[in-house]
């Protein structure tokens, strides 16, 4: 990923990742909470790894602990781009 990564691109990667983890694709909306999607700490550890690989953004466990919804995650990642 070079210079111009957009929030949309981040959202796409997050959405696809959550679907891979087993979340129902129809329920993955910006407002959806991880609790409702049955996304837990192990999934978020995997997501952190993917985000690091795709965007070079490093998320610590303490960052991720504050993230409660899909949009929370997208905004956090976008703010670190």
């Amino acid at each position, binding site marked *: 990923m070079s210079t111009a990564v957009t929030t949309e691109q981040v959202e796409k990667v997050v959405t696809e990742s959550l679907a891979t*983890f*087993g*979340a129902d694709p129809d329920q993955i909306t910006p407002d959806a909470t991880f609790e409702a999607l*049955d996304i837990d700490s*192990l999934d978020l*550890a*995997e997501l952190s*790894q993917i985000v*690091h*690989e795709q965007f070079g953004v490093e998320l610590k466990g303490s960052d991720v602990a504050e993230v409660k919804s899909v949009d929370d995650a997208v905004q956090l990642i976008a703010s670190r781009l």
Partner: protein
Amino acid sequence: MEATARIERADAIVVTGVGAVTPLGVGARTLHERWCAGECGIADGEGACTDFDAGDFLSAKEARRADRFTQLAIAACDEALADAGWARERGRGADELPYDRERVGCVLGTGIGGIRTLVDGQDTLRERGAQFVSPLSVPLMMSNAGAGALSMRHGLRGPSFAVSSACASGAHAIGSALRMLQSGEADAAVAGGSEAGLTPLARAAFGALDALSQTGVSRPFDARRDGFVMGEGAAVIVLERERAARARGARVIGRVRGYGASSDAHHLTAPREDGEGQAAAMRAALADAGVAVERIDYVNAHGTSTPLNDRAETHAIKLALGEHARRIPVSSTKSAIGHLLGAAGAVEAVATLLALRDRIAPPTLGLSEPEAGLDLDYVPGAARPLAPGGHRAAGGGSATDGERQPVLALSNSFGFGGHNAVLCLEAP
């Protein structure tokens, strides 16, 4: 309280549910029926569970959270709980248990655990780097992952753990669960074994030990046998106290009458040639069951098809059972499915219970030229009816008229490291 504990200890421990996934197919009865029909689940020199599809039992999320050895255990456990009437239907977590969840234990044996996950993680580390190793690696590969998954899936909140004693793991797991109920630590337990080691690493590693059959044929006790055939699978049984099981109207498949374990303290891989260590476990199981040698109607042998085991085990059976060894059938499940390693003891306990229930002596397949000195009745080639008392009738005893007598068997399991575990099983 103490008096209660004593009463509970005296209560028989019964099996109310069984489940299995083996190279002969999905289901405990599939294993039993196909083995007794003389069918073999080995193909291309291995016993793979080709009929097993994790998607039949697990959601996508559940499947990616479980190494194959855990997936196999989950399928076997679902079947066992449904069989016991603990779950309304197969494939679902038990939502209502007949016992307090805190009083239900779970013991699962495995020889290796999640070896596929381990190998995948190593490949990722080498090819892509440390930062790409999956956070799921540890929770999937750890040898207790299966026990944890069963406990979580069904809300079993009593003691749960894995036991590991190589190819005796499944029998040690059932023995440990038996003790858990006898000591009063739990009122019921789910116990078994699971293994999914069909990987190039395991093939190479067992091959380097010269333990695997070069011909790819499992023929225990045959003069031409040249090693074991590696297999994969799982089995789980449900254990309860007889009084409680009957009170809830459960169907009783059989009893775990006794358990005996010993160690060769001899060699890392080879059994004692004289079979004395193995015989000690058989004697201990008989003593624990409180039954005379003459009460044993069948021996489900460890019978790996390796030159060393089958010779030592034949000695052991003769040492433990004396003259009676020659009067009863002895056969090897591994002739039909290969060696399921850490799952073997549990799978063979299930096969033994169902054989006893149906009064069948299952066959040792592939056996047509017994080695000199291996002279027990190994039931070569085809199953036959199991007469209570074995061949006792011919020796002057008489089969009782009228009332159906329970039948008993020993199921032998011996592991690398010199671990010997023997179960004494009974069916009504």
